[in-house]
C-alpha cells in the first residue's frame, strides 16, 4: 500500500474525509514553501497537493496563474520542487505529497528520470492536468513501477464510458473537478456534485476527492458529506497572495476551521 492509500484507508476506517490543501511550490518565494507545507499539516492536512509552476497554466484561473508567475519569477523548476519535497520529508515522514501540474515539465525531464527522482524525494502521487488516460499509458505504468500513484481527473462532462478508462490507470484517488471551469471559479453546486459522485462511485474502487470552488468551511463540510476527500486550492493561494506577514499561522488557522467543519459532517 502506498502512503496515499494507507492515509485514505485509515481515514475511511475512522469515518472521516481527507483534507487536501493545494499551494504552488515556490510561491511567494522558494524559501518559504517547506514551512508552509508544515503549517498546512498543522492545520489538519491529510495529503498535500503541491503545484508545479508552469508557464502556461491553461486549466487555472487568475489566482493560481499568478502563483505560477510568482514562482517562475524565482526560476522554480520541477527539480527545485522535488528538492522542496525532500526537505519537507526530513521532518514529516507521514503526510503524502502529490505533485499537481502540467505535462511538459515532466516530459522535458523524461518520465523515467522524473519518477526515480520523485520517489527519492518522497513524492507519493502525480497529477498531470493535461494528460488524459488516452495519452497516459506509458507515464502511468512508469509511475506505478516506482510506487507513485498516478492521479487522474474526472469531470462533470465525463461520460460513463470514460470512467472505466480512468479507473484502469488510476490509483491512490481520483480527483473530481466539481465544475466546468478553471480553478478558483466560485460556482460550486453541491447538489449536482453529489448526483454525479453517486454515479461515479458505482464504477470506481478508488476514493474520490473533490476540488474546484471549495473555499470555506461550509462548502468543505457539504462536499465532505458526499466525497472521500476535499481539495482546497485557490482560497489558500489567495492567503499566500495577501502577504508573508503571519502567513504560516493564517494557513494553519484557516485549514483548522475547515477541518473542524468537515468533522461535523461525519456520515
Amino acid at each position: 500500500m502506498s502512503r496515499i492509500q494507507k492515509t485514505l484507508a485509515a481515514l475511511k476506517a475512522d469515518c472521516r474525509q481527507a483534507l487536501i490543501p493545494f499551494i504552488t511550490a515556490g510561491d511567494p518565494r522558494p524559501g518559504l514553501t517547506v514551512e508552509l507545507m508544515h503549517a498546512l499539516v498543522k492545520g489538519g492536512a491529510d495529503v498535500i497537493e503541491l503545484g508545479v509552476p508552469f508557464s502556461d497554466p491553461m486549466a487555472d484561473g487568475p489566482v493560481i496563474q499568478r502563483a505560477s508567475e510568482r514562482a517562475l519569477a524565482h526560476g522554480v523548476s520541477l527539480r527545485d520542487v522535488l528538492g522542496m519535497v525532500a526537505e519537507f520529508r526530513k521532518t514529516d515522514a507521514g503526510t503524502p505529497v502529490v505533485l499537481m501540474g502540467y505535462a511538459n515539465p515532466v516530459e522535458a525531464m523524461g518520465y523515467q528520470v522524473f519518477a526515480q527522482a520523485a520517489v527519492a524525494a518522497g513524492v507519493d502521487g502525480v497529477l498531470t492536468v493535461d494528460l488524459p488516460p488516452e495519452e497516459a499509458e506509458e507515464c502511468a505504468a512508469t509511475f506505478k513501477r516506482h510506487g507513485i500513484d498516478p492521479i487522474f481527473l474526472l469531470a462533470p462532462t465525463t461520460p460513463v464510458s470514460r470512467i472505466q478508462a480512468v479507473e484502469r490507470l488510476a490509483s491512490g484517488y481520483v480527483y473530481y473537478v466539481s465544475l466546468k471551469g478553471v480553478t478558483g471559479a466560485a460556482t460550486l453546486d453541491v447538489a449536482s456534485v453529489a448526483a454525479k459522485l453517486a454515479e461515479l462511485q458505482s464504477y470506481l474502487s478508488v476514493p474520490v476527492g473533490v476540488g474546484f470552488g471549495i473555499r470555506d468551511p461550509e462548502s468543505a463540510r457539504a462536499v465532505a458529506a458526499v466525497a472521500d476527500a476535499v481539495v482546497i486550492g485557490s482560497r489558500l493561494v489567495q492567503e499566500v497572495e495577501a502577504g508573508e506577514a503571519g502567513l504560516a499561522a493564517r494557513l494553519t488557522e484557516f485549514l483548522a476551521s475547515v477541518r473542524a467543519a468537515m468533522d461535523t459532517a461525519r456520515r
Partner: protein
Amino acid sequence: MNDKLRYNQPDARGHFGQHGGIYVAETLMAALDELRVEYEKAIADPDFMAEYRYELAHYVGRPSPVYHAKRWSELLGGAQIYLKREDLNHTGAHKVNNTIGQALLARRMGKKRVIAETGAGQHGVASATVAARYGLECVVYMGAEDVARQSPNVYRMKLLGATVVPVTSGSKTLKDAMNEAMRDWVTNVDSTYYIIGTCAGPHPYPTLVRDFQCVIGEEAKVQMQDMIGRHFHPYVEVPGVRLIGVEAGGHGVETGQHAAPLTTNAKVGVLHGQRSYLMQDANGQIVETHSVSAGLDYPGVGPEHSYLKDIGRAEYVAINDDEALKAFHDLCRFEGIIPALESSHALAHAAKIAPTMAKDQVLLVNLSGRGDKDIPTIAKLDGIQL
C-alpha cells in the same frame, strides 16, 4: 518511382507519428469526442459539403487566382514565382476557408456561441465575420501586445459585432490568447464552439483545419501542376514536388528571439492539447518568442508539420524579420501587391532561392493574406506617423 507517395495520417486518435494526440484536461475530452464524431458525419454529408462549397464560392470568392509574379521573377533572375492569391479572399486571408467550415459545424452542433484565439487578428476577423454571417455570438481572445500592433483588425472585429478580449498574461501574444480561449471553452463547453485558427491543438483540430484549408492546394493543383504550396497537404502525396515551410526567424535564430521551432530543432513537448516540436527551456517551461509578424509569434507548430519534418517530406527554413520586411516592400513595389507580414516570410524565402534555380523552374508561394492590417507596424518601423 511510384507515382503516389503513401500517406495516411493521422491515426484514429490524432497521432501524426510521435506528434499530435489529445492533451487536455478531462473536462474537454467529451467535447472533443463529440466534435470528432460530428465532423466525420458532416464531411460525409453531401448537403454539408455542398453548403461549404457554396459559401466558399459566393461568400469568399473562391477559387482564388494563381498569379505569375513575372516582373519580380525577372528581377530576381531565376525561378518563376507564382502566388496563390489567398489575399484576395473575403476578409483578406486564408483563415476564412477554415472559419466557414467550423462555423457551419458549430451551427450543425447547435452551438450558439463561438470563441477564437488570434495573433495577427486575421483568424479573429474571419471568425467574427462568419459569426455575423450565421448569427452566432463571438468572443475573440487576443494578446494585449497584438491588440496594440494589429489595431485595424481589432476595430474590424468590433465592427463585425465580436467582443475582443485583450489577454495580459504571459508574453501577451498568440500563445497566451490560446490559453485564455481554452479557459473560456472549459467554462462554457456546453454552449460554446471553439474555432481554432491553425492546424494545431488537440485532435481532431489539426485534421479538421487541414481539411478545410485543403481547398487552397486542391485548387492550385488544378490551376498549375507540379508546384509547391504552403498548405501542403494536397501536395504531400505528389512526388517531385519539394515542400518548403518557412518559419519566423525573428531577430535571427542564433539570438534565441524567434518563432522557428522546426528550423532550430526544438525538443518535442506538450502544449495546447498536442504533442509537437516546441520552444522551451531546459525545465520544460515554454519560452517567449519574437516575430515582427503577430500571426507567426508562437512557440509551437502543428503536429503534421512536425511529422513531415520527421519523415523528411518537407524542409523547413527560417526567415528573419528584416528579410521578411524587404520582401514585403519588394512585392509592394514590383508587383503592386501589399502582402501580409506572415506571407512575406514565404515570399522572402522564394526570393532567396529563386536566383539559385533555373528560369524554367517554378516556385508557388501561398500568399496567405494581404498586408492592410500590418500598415501601422510598417509605418512605425519606417518612422512614419500615420
